[in-house]
């Protein structure tokens, strides 16, 4: 006789292990992870490894790379060390990316969750607001915010977050709309769980995976937005960000291309790593596409 199915199938490995196994399958995502880890390490070690302050004069202006070992990647127009700039830039760019993303996602989650969960007029109102934000070209809004707030790095980051929340809000709303009809939500309501708890403890954790994936997109866009601001000379010159370095290096693009190209490559690689990371996360978190 087949026995009752009271005996359990062998315990599954912890989620993290499963996650990692799925993630690992995507080779490009692995590459993304490697680059990402390198960037994070650069950010962490910026103070230790390198000749210190990236804003100080470190040598003769416009020393090309690989000429002077004190400034291995050369110096910029004001004699500042490019290598040190790249390391510190990793810190600033990551910080901008992470914080702006958190801001965008926090706003997006709240608005999307309320709209998606309650529907009706709440949804109508919030969606009108979202549409309004989406209608104004985000870069123009960003320029306006920066004009208002000034180019301090905190404000730039906040402004980038503020112009980026609409997409996550829409995603969260869509997720909530589909999840709120799911039986486990009914089950929780049936147990007498309050709306707030249902939104944040029952639905949100289940709505997060696509948001986490999208976070990598916002992160990438944040870095690109910051660099575009710096290009228009609206970056914060008190910090060596990659955007600032390109923004200034562009003036010497023809005579000393490395000044812009090196941080440019850093941006491209970092943004690339975020995107690849996002794809890996997508494969690992949304196993809907169980190909391979």
């Amino acid at each position, binding site marked *: *006789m*087949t026995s*009752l*199915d*009271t*005996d*359990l*199938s062998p*315990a*599954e490995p912890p*989620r993290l292990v499963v996650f990692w196994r799925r993630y690992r399958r995507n080779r490009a995502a692995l590459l993304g992870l490697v680059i990402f880890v390198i960037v994070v390490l650069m950010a962490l070690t910026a103070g230790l490894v390198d000749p210190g302050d990236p804003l100080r004069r470190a040598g003769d202006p416009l020393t090309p790379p690989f000429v002077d070992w004190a400034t291995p990647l050369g110096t910029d127009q004001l004699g500042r060390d490019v290598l040190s700039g790249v390391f510190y830039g990793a810190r600033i760019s990551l910080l901008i990316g992470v914080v702006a993303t958190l801001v965008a996602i926090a706003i997006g989650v709240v608005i999307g969750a309320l709209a998606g969960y309650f529907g009706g007029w709440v949804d109508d109102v919030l969606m009108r607001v979202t549409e309004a934000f989406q209608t104004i070209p985000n870069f123009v809004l960003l320029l306006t915010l920066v004009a208002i707030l000034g180019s301090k790095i905190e404000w730039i980051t906040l402004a980038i977050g503020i112009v980026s929340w609409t997409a996550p809000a829409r995603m969260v709303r869509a997720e909530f709309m589909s999840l709120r009809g*799911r*039986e*486990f939500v*009914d*089950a*929780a*309501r*049936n*147990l*007498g*769980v*309050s709306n707030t708890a249902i939104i944040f403890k*029952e639905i949100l*954790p*289940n709505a997060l995976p696509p948001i986490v994936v999208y976070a990598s997109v916002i992160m990438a866009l944040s870095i690109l937005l910051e660099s575009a601001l710096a290009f228009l000379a609206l970056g914060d010159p008190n910090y060596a960000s990659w955007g600032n370095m390109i923004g200034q290096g562009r003036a010497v693009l023809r005579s000393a291309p490395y000044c812009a190209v090196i941080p440019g490559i850093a941006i491209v690689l970092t943004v690339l790593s975020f995107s690849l990371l996002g794809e890996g996360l997508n494969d690992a978190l949304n196993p809907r596409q169980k190909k*391979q």
Partner: protein
Amino acid sequence: MTDTPPILQIRDLKIALPKGADRPFALEGLDLTIEPGEIVCLVGESGSGKSLCAGAIMRLLPEPHVHVAGGAIRFMGEELLGKTETEMRAIRGEDIAMIFQEPMTALNPQKTVGWQLDEVLRLHTRMTRAERKARAIEMLERVHIPDPASAYNAYPHQISGGQRQRVVIAMALLLSPKLIIADEPTTALDVTTQLQILKLIRELQEQEGAGVLFITHDFGVVAEIADKVAVLCKGEMVEQGPAAEVLNNPQHAYTRALIGAVPALTPPPVKPVTQAPVVLKGIGLKKTFAARGGLLSGKRKAVVAVKDLTFQLHRGETLGVVGESGSGKTTVSRIVTRLLECDAGKVELDGKDLLACSPRELRAMRKYIQMVFQDPMASLNPRKRVVDLIAQGPIVHGADPDKARADARKLLELVELSPAAATRFPHEFSGGQRQRIGIARALALEPKVIVADEPVSALDVSVQAQVLKLLADLRDRLNLSLLFVTHDLRVAAQLCDRIIVMQKGEIVESGLTAEVFANPQHAYTQNLLSSIPGRDWTPPSFRTDAA
């Protein structure tokens, strides 16, 4: 060679699964023969490899990770496995046709029915446009679609589920294939429609003399249609033989267990429940879903889901709510638990009107009326551990978290799950186990009434039997009152003391289960009962019952 070769001959078929799957081979050593004019049923529980077998014949496995690892598939004496993709394309649709399970998704939503029928003809024949259209409409007529000409121009979403399945069948039969593979073609349909479709397949197959490989997990359907039966268990064929033989005198233990789990159509003995006090009363319930469609969601007419429904549930009683899809069963269960606000009426729980409660009172009242949901996976939050899932209710209602968790572990025992289950996540369980967790969660609050909406319809027969038995046990032991919603009359017959039969939001008949089954009054009920597949076959009972 005088006699024709069998239409399909499968020898020692082996299908490999990718690494990390629960078993290395989805199918191992399958032998199967289909003669012309024969309907062979392939039965087995979910995951036994039925669909992959069909896929292998069509050469449509998701290669390379799932692939044929050995054996032979001979069609009309010709080996299929060695054929090129181009050769296979010529065979597919013309010589071997397939009918899929989900009529909702098997048709391209963006193309008209006519276009999709036409495509088969365009691919395999040199008919002119007019000829093709004539042929397609003729085929639609043969599958008894009302007004074939207009159906020809309709998009799939514009016709009903049953009609869609007919279209899929028409598409399969368009070129009079020699072999038809039907993969659970009726599972998603109402019993009445199911019977019509089964009859249709039988009728057409007799006319065309084709061989049919019919995949199903429902022994009722097998009894209805099969000439021969093959039983699959975890990729292995455990038994094969003429239908009557296998159904009434199964040899293999697994087959016996399966057949033993099919609920008989014999209602339980009458209990004197009507004398017990009424715990739940629905009075004059009404619900109309407004016509409001979203901007882009297309027009929808207002639907009257429930109109003027009144019922009573006594203590310790099981009241079944049966009816076809869309008759309003789920709506009733959701109104009663106030997951859905209704338009009018009262739901009295121990004399107190649940529908009039303020949100605060309601949350307190929820304790007394709990629910078991249809889909055991969807109803458990995938990010919570089992123990937290079960303890959540008591904690919300103010119990001490530690004590609630300890109680939850005890409940696991009650629903016959090992205590080791407590710290796991829902996805680590089988369907039946998940439904037990759902039941444990409902019980945790020690409710007076449990509302169960199709709690077993997503489960395999054997598992279904176990869950039903557990529910019956608990009901008797805890003296629970059960409002049991189901579309499966066999299940209703087995469990319910009384039933109400719903059609289009209204009760057309109600009474003691035995009486309704023995002597249905309303035409709708009569039709429903006579559509139960294999109603003339009584599954033999075995001493060594699996449950």
